Structures are given as structure tokens and as C-alpha cells.
């Protein structure tokens, strides 16, 4: 089997990339998806709020996905469902398995990684206590409720205020269960502000910031959790410990880009994002392998995933048409003070069309701050931001000419910073 472009994952990133690649003229495309239906995590996101940027209307997750699935069908793009990729080699051979074909080796001219992310489990945050039934990650709970039609519990405590946790707080409440509290280790929520308002505040669900679960109790099923406030070093203050009886603990404590396959191809990862290191074209260090969506960086809005997928697809098309320039003047991208990471992590000046879109997250909550982009001491861009919070991504466009120094050659590096006034 040989394809021009093989896309791994049929979530919003993979679907978006497939449609874009087709519209840019490539016909020999294959999407590989492990689930029995495309759409990825959007299938279980039955709430609305998707598509405000992309379609200028408010859609549910499945509706958003369906817009792309319809196009994939209309264009006749090949899609292999129920197929798991086992590994990818650096020379772009994808090994996958399914029930009909067994183990296959698929050769690709270009690969787009769109595997998404997974949830951080209990072990990774080491909550002491017993190991009963009734502990779920938020996404797993969402799948049970929205897709399988079952409730994983009735009296619920949610640890972590990531977006899926917030959405599930509302979902559980609407289903007649009781969400007793959302407990967040940090002094701020890691979710979108609109979700805190619409999912917690509107239902009177308490959000306990700077708190954590210090013990899980119950032998067979969760019977309760002990929570406590934490100090500035995130250590629990035992004198504040409080027991909450509940039958379920939901974890919404972070998402990790799913890059096991990327590693098998020798792709270098950013230790902060957990996703591949990419350039302005969303190309990884392995030539012809591109990445987009949550496998690259955990996004807050699906609309941005779609944009990123388009860019990755455009680049893959350029690559197979030998239009992507490999040599050239490279610019390093750095995260300065107040910025946790920036994607892309490097830029090849020759491949910039008119601008580069940078995604980043701040390290803390800031009000009335500026994002500045500097090259050495020289300030290239300064943008006023009303409010910065780690739960919401910052997007900054840097026009092509801004990468040039006074002598009109590209600068060696640029740094993004938060400037507090």
C-alpha cells in the first residue's frame, strides 16, 4: 500500500488535515482511525460551543465533526476505521493492524500525526488511599454517560478543573447526580473562563482553588475523599483537611499528547508541551512528518485545531510537491519570562508566506499585561492582553517582515515574554 499522505487519527485534526490536503489537490490520501467511527473525542462532546470561529455558529462536538466527515465522504477520501497503528518508521512506513487486513505496512510520502492526547491517570498524581471502583478520568466518565448511556456515579467530587472536568460537572448535574465540589490544586482554574461560568457558577457547584484530594477511602466502591488546602509549594495543609462523602472521584488533572508513535519514528519531543518540536510548517525533525492538534499541543478550542491541521496539510502538500524549502535561515523561538511554551519552536524564514501564528500559554494569571516579542533587545511586537490565564491559549501572529533585522537578514532567535505593567 502506498499513499501520498497518511494521516493518523480521524479526530478534528486528522479530518481537518484530510479535507485541506484534498482541497489543495492531493487525491491519494489515507486516514487511519482506531475507533469505529470518525470524530475522535468530539463524538462524546455533546455540549455546544464548538465552531464559533470556524463556522461562525455554535455547534455540538458531533455536529462540528460531521461537517468534516461529510466532506471526507464527498471527496471519497480513504478512511480505515477500527485500525490501530503499531508503529511508524523514520522512513515513513506505517505499520497498522485491523481485523480485515491483519498487519499492514503502508508507505507514505508524507505523514500527518493527529493522534490527539490522553488523560493523566491517578497514579501520575499519586493520590494515596485505597483502590476501589468509582475513580474515573473525566473523559472516560464522559464516554460512559454520553456514548454508552450509563452513569458512573451519583455523588461526585471532581479533582482538577480542566475543561472536561468542568463540562462533566454540568453534565452530571443535568443527569440528576450531585457534584459536591470541584477541587483544584492551583490558585486558578486550568479551564476556560466560559466553562467555569456556564458549568459551575450557573449550577452553584463550589470550585475550591488551592485544594487537593489527600486520600481516597472505600474498600469496594469509593466512599469518600479527604481534601485539604495546599500551601504555596502545593503541599497539603493537614489542619485544613475535610472529609467529603461521595461514591465517585473524577480526575481532570491534565492531558498528555499521545506521542508513543512519534517516538517510534525518532521524532523529538518538547519536554514542556509533550508534543513534537515543529517548525513554522508544523514539520517535525523527521522530514515529511507533520503534526497538528492535541498531539502537538493541548488546545483549548477545536477551531484552533482545525487551523493548525490546515497548516500541517498545506505543508505536507508542499512537501510532496517539493515546494517546502529545507535549507534556509532558521530562527529559534524561545519562551521567556511568564511564558510556559511556544509552538512552533523554530521557524525557517524561507517557508513563511506572510506571517507565522504562534501558540503559547502563560505560566500564571496576569491582568492587563503585554505579550512582547523580542529579538535580542529589540522589541518586535507588543500586544496588550486584558487577562492571561494558563487555561487559555494565547495566539500571536508575527508578520514575515518582523523577522528581519536592520540589515534585512532574518534574526537568529525571537523570545516571547509576558510584560507586567
Amino acid at each position, binding site marked *: 500500500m502506498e499513499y501520498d499522505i497518511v494521516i493518523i487519527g480521524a479526530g478534528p485534526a486528522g479530518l481537518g488535515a484530510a479535507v485541506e490536503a484534498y482541497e489543495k489537490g492531493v487525491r491519494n490520501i489515507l486516514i487511519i482511525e482506531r475507533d469505529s467511527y470518525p470524530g475522535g473525542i468530539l463524538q462524546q462532546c455533546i455540549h455546544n460551543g464548538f465552531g464559533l470561529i470556524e463556522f461562525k455558529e455554535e455547534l455540538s462536538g458531533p455536529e462540528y465533526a460531521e461537517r468534516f466527515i461529510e466532506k471526507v465522504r464527498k471527496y471519497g477520501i480513504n478512511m480505515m476505521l477500527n485500525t490501530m497503528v503499531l508503529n511508524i518508521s523514520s522512513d515513513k512506513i506505517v505499520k497498522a493492524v*485491523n481485523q480485515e487486513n491483519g498487519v499492514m505496512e503502508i508507505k507514505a510520502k508524507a505523514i500527518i500525526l493527529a493522534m490527539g492526547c490522553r488523560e493523566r491517570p491517578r497514579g*501520575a498524581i499519586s493520590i494515596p*488511599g485505597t483502590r476501589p471502583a468509582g475513580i474515573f478520568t473525566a473523559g472516560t466518565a464522559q464516554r460512559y454517560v454520553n456514548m*454508552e448511556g450509563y452513569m*458512573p456515579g451519583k455523588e461526585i467530587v471532581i479533582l482538577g478543573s480542566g475543561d472536561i472536568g468542568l463540562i462533566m460537572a454540568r453534565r452530571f448535574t443535568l443527569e440528576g447526580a450531585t457534584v459536591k465540589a470541584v477541587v483544584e490544586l492551583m490558585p486558578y482554574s486550568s479551564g476556560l473562563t466560559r466553562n467555569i461560568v456556564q458549568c459551575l457558577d450557573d449550577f452553584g457547584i463550589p470550585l475550591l482553588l488551592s485544594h487537593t484530594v489527600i486520600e481516597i477511602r472505600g474498600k*469496594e466502591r469509593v466512599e469518600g475523599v479527604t481534601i485539604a488546602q495546599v500551601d504555596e509549594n502545593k503541599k497539603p495543609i493537614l489542619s485544613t483537611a475535610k472529609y467529603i462523602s461521595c461514591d465517585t472521584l473524577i480526575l481532570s488533572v491534565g492531558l498528555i499528547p499521545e506521542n508513543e508513535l512519534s517516538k517510534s519514528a525518532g521524532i523529538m519531543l518538547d519536554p514542556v508541551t509533550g508534543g513534537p518540536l515543529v517548525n513554522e510548517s508544523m514539520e517535525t525533525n523527521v522530514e515529511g512528518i507533520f503534526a497538528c492538534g492535541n498531539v502537538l499541543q493541548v488546545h483549548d478550542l477545536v477551531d484552533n485545531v482545525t487551523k493548525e491541521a490546515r497548516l500541517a496539510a498545506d505543508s505536507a502538500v508542499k512537501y510532496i510537491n517539493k515546494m517546502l524549502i529545507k535549507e534556509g535561515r532558521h530562527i529559534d523561538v524561545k519562551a521567556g519570562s511568564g511564558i510556559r511554551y511556544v509552538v512552533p519552536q523554530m521557524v525557517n524564514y524561507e517557508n513563511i508566506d506572510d506571517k507565522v501564528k504562534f501558540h503559547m500559554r502563560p505560566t500564571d494569571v496576569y491582568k492587563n499585561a503585554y505579550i512582547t516579542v523580542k529579538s535580542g533587545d529589540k522589541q518586535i511586537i507588543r500586544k496588550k492582553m486584558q487577562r492571561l490565564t494558563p487555561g487559555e491559549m494565547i495566539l500571536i501572529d508575527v508578520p514575515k517582515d518582523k523577522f528581519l533585522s536592520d540589515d534585512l537578514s532574518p534574526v537568529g532567535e525571537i523570545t516571547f515574554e509576558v510584560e507586567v505593567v
Partner: protein
Amino acid sequence: MYDVIIIGGGVVGSSIARELSKYDIKVLLIEKEDDVASGGASKANSAILHAGYDPVPGTLKAKLNVRGNEMFDELCKDLDVPMKRVGSLVAAFSQDEVESLYKLYDRGLKNGVKNISIISADMVKEIEPNINDTIVAALYAKTAGIICPYGFVIALAENAAQNGVEFVFNQEVISIDKEDDVFTVKTQDKEYFGKYIVNAAGLYADVINNMVSDKRFSIHPRKGEYLILDKEEGYLANTVIFQVPTKMGKGILVSPTVDGNLLIGPTSEDIYNKEFRKTTYKGLEKAIKGAKKSVEKFNERKTITQFTGVRAVPDVDGEDFIIGESDVKGFINVAGIESPGFTSSPAIAEMVGEILKDAGLNMVEKDNFNPKRKPVIRFNELTDEERNELIKKNPAYGKIICRCETVTEGEIIDAIRRPVGAKSIDGVKRRVRAGMGRCQGGFCSPRVLEILSRELNADPLNVTKFGGRSNVLTAKAKEYLINSYKELLKSGV
């Protein structure tokens, strides 16, 4: 009427069941949990085959450890259980500790342990490049190994069942009476009759003994907390790295697991409630700190799960195993089987066979005993050609359910359908590793639940994590809502 009733489905009970299945006798094993190796020490321990230099010479522990260790090669081959003789090091980080190495070495020689030696820091570094530079010397025992503990117990039980041993689960023994040479074993639901009883009830062996015997003893729980790290950290240890032992146990170890993860722990803490099996901040911290004494380099942030094991410590002199016929004829105790109990278990089973024979049980060998378990298909370990053959024959092997550990639907169905098959999410997990990877079942557990529900013909609401009331799901969607509307209507609002 059974010839022998074994109480307890841990490694000891299952080893004995498998040993007795060689003979033409009627054997029943009663387990209070929903699976073998599910409740006590056999589920959660250091997963190690000890060489045998630790126990005091002359004790049952010493004799059975060394004999048991020797028996594992053949057993693991017959039962298709992965085991690796990676060897163990007792690492000394000071001159004082080196003294202790010599004591252990002497014990080892007295106990008949083969292939042990004391090696220099340089040689240790060659074997374990990631051990801390403060290493002075180590006792190297080549016969030590690593194994999946519950995997071994499941294999024993399966093979015993293949050879005719009956198993009942979810039955807790509440009383035992003896009348006219017949024991009546009562559980919460049923009664079973047997000529001989083998008490292999682990942590609760005292309770069972004290139902029958006037010679009471007690078993104290001693807890140990462990952490399992991601496979990315597995390279940090090639052998089982012990520290110099103390009175409370063999100290904190750093070890590869047979599946390639890194295991650290256990702590050692006497507790007063046998069910007090939880991890604590303090314990986990202690395990991490203790392990860093041997290998600093591991990253505890790569922890994927943590657990507590409980050792069954008997209140007898020297804390030796209690194995033998009690003051009540026909009632055989196999109690206080703490470390090196797992390693000793095959030798214990042999010994119990002899004890039963001496006690008058007529044991005639079967001609049709099959020592081999039906081999387990592990998709992950097959070549692509083998995979394709398999998928052609049974397409369920082409569907990956657990992506972290690459486990197929075919393997899960097989684990459920085998003798003494999986009945719960954890039962599947312990048999095929679905849910044991870095996502810890976030992705596969709804799918495993669906397969269990289908295979066992059970309502999804009745599928449990590990039997009892550990149901995963609590209601159908909308049920709570409908109930609350009904309440509202009733109250006339």
C-alpha cells in the same frame, strides 16, 4: 464429599491445588474474593524469586525457599508464565553494610544457594551502570528472578482446574465443624464437606485455624507500599537491587518487572487492621527516598500506579512458616507464609502433598495429569506473520483494545473463557495487562467492560472492578433524573 478442601486462592492455595491435581482425589478450592490472587499478598508483592540467602539456616523458610526457587524453570515453562532469572544484588553502601554481606553470604552457603558471590563496586557498576556511585560492594545471586506474581497464580489455578480441581469464588468461610472424620465448611451461602482441610487463607489463616484448633495463633499484617514507574524508567535496573536487610524486612528494592516497568518499594510497617491496605503520602515518600539510596536516577514523576501489599506475619518464634497438621486430625495449616513465601510456594505444595499422604490420604497418581497449561497468545510478542495467521483464523485478534500494552480483543475473550477465567475488569487486567499501561485503563476500560458484559451475559451495571460491590457503573443515564422527578411528583410540587 471432597477429599481435600483448600481454603484460600493465593499463591499457596493455588500451588497446592495444582500439586494435588496430579492425584486421583477430589479437590475443592474456596476463595472469598471473585478471583485467585485477588485479595491478599499474592496480588501485591515484590514480584521476585528470592535466591534463598536471607532466611535463617535450618528454618522452613530456608529449606523451602531454595527448593522452591529451583522449581520455577520447569513450572514457568509448563504453565507458560514469563519469568526472568535476572539475578539480584544486595548493595552495600558503607563498610558496615559490607559486613552484613558476608553474613548473608554465609547464610546462603549454609542454605545451599548456588551461584552467589560478593562482588566489587566495579563489577556492580558493570552489571548496574545506574546504581549510585556510593556503592562499595554487593552480594550477587544469579538464581534470583522476576516474575508476574498474579500471572503465576492464575496459571497454577487454570492448570489445576484443567486437571479437575473445582474452584468456588465469592464464598467466605464462616465456620468449620468436624464430626465423624468429616469437616463441614460453611460459607455465607453454602456448605461443603471434606475429609481434609488445607488452611491457606493467608492474612486470615489465623481466623480459619481458630475456628477449628485449640492451638490458636495470630497473623499480623505488615504493610508495604510500592510504586510502579513507566517503562521508560525500566532501563534503570537490570537486576533486583536490594539493600542490606533489617529486622523489618529486606529493605527497599529497585527492580525491573518482567513486563519492563520499574518497581520500587516496599516500605515495612506493622498495621493493626488487615483491611488497612492503603497507600499514604508518608509511605510513598519513604519508598521513593529509600529507593534513591540505591538508584538516584529514577524520576518519580513517571509513576504510573502505586499499591500496598500486606505481609502475613505469624506470631511464632522466628516468624517461620507454620506448615503441618494441626492438633485436629486432617486439618493442615499452611500459615504465616510471608516472604519468601511466593518463591517457596511450589516447595510448600510438595510438602503439603507429603503431609496429606502421611495423614492417611490415599494419593494415587493420575495417568492423565497434564502439566501444561493451554498456551497463552500474547499478540505483542508475535511476529507479523504469526499475527496475520492468527487474525485470519480469529479476527478478534486484529482488534486492539488496550493501546498502551497492545492487547487485542481476542486475548481478552480468551482470558474470560479460560478455566478460572476473568470475571471483572481487574481480572482481565491481571491476565492480559489491559489497563496496566501508562493511561491506566482510561481508554480501554469502557471497552473491556463491554466485552465482559457480552461474554458473561451480564448487564453492564453488574460488571465489577474486582467482584463484590465494586460495580463500575451505578445507573442507566436519565435514571437519577427520572427518580428525582418522581419524588417531586409524589411530593405534589
